[in-house]
């Protein structure tokens, strides 16, 4: 990720990765060691690696989109805010699902934990944003640790079932508490940092984007350390990891805890975004859409999770404007307009189904296939060049 900032000057375009690859390898052949130093060759070598150009283009497109939305109208801003919140949640889930390979259906529960921790503390009189944020993260961390306990005995189906159980239990507890204490939900105080109001509009959007960037980069850095390697080993094969000396219990619990904390932070921000914590928002449907985001983007990739979150969050708005355009042009589209949320839920389920069964790499995987195809076009050309030299 750090390399991204240095890459744009040296990259010409995605359409021509083959030639830049050929140039890079030719340079390395001439002066193998000395050229390897310095920013530009390092960036070039990074760019040659398979899949990286796709990642770069996706990151640039997302960044441009994020900046554009920052200056667009309030409605677009609102969509951008929810995209950022769900991207944080999706990154949290992807640490567990993609990073450590533990598929769990409890994302909504962790968002609820974050939201309710913040809301209940606010009710008790705490108004400082950072205190509430850290408290929700800690609550997510602790519950994540506990929810990892069933995962110590087994993985796969049983773990999936225990996470669904957790989801139902948290929904039931929060709903019962809410109906008993305050049926319309728990309001949150305005989001103040110092004397600046970050509750809505562009300030909230910027805050969310900064949080997303910090969490994303932190997760990327962690993945480069031994922790990331241990998670990867868990993902590939737990038994094999244990036999090669990886402390399965410890790293698994860490993955659950970290994922829980990040997802709870997203839940806290969601509550701030809505203005209140409402138990009804954090049900199994939310969990399923979170998992869909991770899967649609590309399960093993954090960037894929962000991409998936943006696509899944923004798609309903796009469909809505598309359908109103169709209706105004006279085509009957009433079955969609009348059942929008239902149809959207069905559509996401369908996408989810198709991705898992037929394209496990997700959207990012598809883009990388495209890159491979472009490379193969360029590869023929560069091959000829090498023959000449």
């Amino acid at each position, binding site marked *: 990720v750090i390399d991204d900032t240095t890459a744009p000057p040296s990259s010409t375009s995605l359409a021509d990765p083959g030639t830049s690859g050929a140039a890079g390898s030719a340079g390395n052949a001439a002066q193998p060691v000395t050229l390897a130093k310095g920013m530009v060759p390092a960036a070039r070598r990074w760019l040659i690696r398979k899949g990286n150009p796709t990642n770069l283009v996706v990151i640039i497109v997302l960044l441009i989109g994020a900046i554009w939305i920052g200056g667009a109208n309030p409605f677009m801003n609102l969509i951008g805010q929810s995209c950022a919140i769900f991207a944080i949640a999706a990154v949290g889930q992807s640490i567990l699902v993609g990073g450590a390979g533990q598929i769990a259906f409890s994302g909504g529960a962790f968002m609820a934990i974050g939201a309710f921790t913040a809301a209940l503390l606010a009710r008790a009189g705490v108004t400082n944003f950072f205190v509430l944020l850290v408290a929700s993260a800690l609550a997510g961390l602790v519950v994540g640790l506990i929810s990892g306990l069933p995962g110590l005995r087994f993985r796969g189906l049983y773990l999936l079932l225990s996470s*669904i159980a957790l989801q139902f*239990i948290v929904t039931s507890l929060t709903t*019962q508490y809410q109906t008993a204490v305050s049926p319309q939900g728990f309001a949150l105080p305005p989001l103040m940092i110092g004397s600046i109001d970050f509750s809505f509009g562009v300030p909230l959007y910027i805050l969310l984007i900064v949080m997303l960037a910090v969490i994303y980069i932190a997760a990327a850095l962690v993945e480069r350390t031994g922790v990331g390697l241990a998670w990867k080993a868990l993902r590939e094969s737990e038994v094999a990891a244990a036999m090669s000396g990886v402390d399965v219990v410890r790293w698994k619990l860490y993955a659950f805890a970290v994922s829980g904390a990040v997802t709870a932070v997203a839940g806290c921000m969601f509550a701030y975004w809505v203005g209140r914590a409402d138990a009804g928002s954090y049900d199994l449907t939310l969990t399923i859409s979170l*998992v869909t985001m991770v899967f649609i983007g590309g399960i093993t990739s954090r960037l894929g999770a962000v991409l998936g979150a943006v696509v899944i969050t923004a798609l309903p708005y796009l469909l809505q404007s598309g359908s109103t355009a169709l209706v105004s042009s006279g085509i009957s589209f009433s079955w969609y307009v009348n059942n929008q949320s239902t149809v959207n839920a069905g559509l*996401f*389920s*369908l996408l989810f189904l198709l991705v898992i*069964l037929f394209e496990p790499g997700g959207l990012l995987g598809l883009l990388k296939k495209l890159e491979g195809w472009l490379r193969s076009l360029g590869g023929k050309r560069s091959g000829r060049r090498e023959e000449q030299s």
Partner: protein
Amino acid sequence: LNVVSQAVWGALVTGSLYGLVGVGFVLLYRASKVLSFTQGGFMLLGAYIFYGLTTSAKMPFLPAAVISAVAVAALSAVVYTVVFSRVAAREPFATSVATLGLAGVITAIVAVLFSTSAVTVPNIVGTASFHVLGAVITSADLVSIAIMVVVVGAILIVLRTTPLGLRMNAVADNPSLAVHLGVSAARIATIAWGLAGLTAALGGVAFALRISIAPAGIATLGFYAFPAIILGGLDSVGGAILGGLILAALQGFAAQVFGPNSIDLVSFGVMLIFLLVRPTGLFGKAEAVRL
């Protein structure tokens, strides 16, 4: 006494329906190691086909129930062969996760066709009710229990006595060995999916007889089959029935003591405890993990 006997009877009826749906899960799991989240969707589909047949076509109970069950069973088998079979053999876990997507699709389709509000099936099994020890027993209850007994009895007889049952047990026991001995695991899995669809549809029909149905509500009822089969053990047919009865009793107790909101909490709390302490359930078989 009235309250107690009514609660016991209610638990017996609801529990036998959980058990019925749970048996479908168990058959599926034994045949293909897939845990199908689509069962809730198939219940929904069965219930609404039944609703459509009895209201629009004014069919009597028996043909309507049989048509819904056969239609859903056929759909389930077709879905397996067309969508899941190729992936299921290789990656049962990914398939299990994917079935959740299919459940969402079915729920959305039913909700668009019939709207999300609850509908009530006309009373077509008669309004006769009996009083036994203070409990009111309606004919819908009796029909529900009869469906469970007949279907589960038939499945148990098939499993115990017929060559097909022998093959199904062989695949459940050791799939690769069964395939080497000439059993077509794919065909067994297709049959199991069909049977699972059948039980789910009949479960949906039975619920439709007793309560008014709505897409979201039935899907949740489908989820209640999970605590039931975890209690009984994922691969035990008899365990699923017993698990269903225990679960329904617990739910009835929780609703009486802590109020109806606590049903989810108690059901899934018990499931979580079982997963932590005894993941194989009461009658399940432990599975060795191999590299």
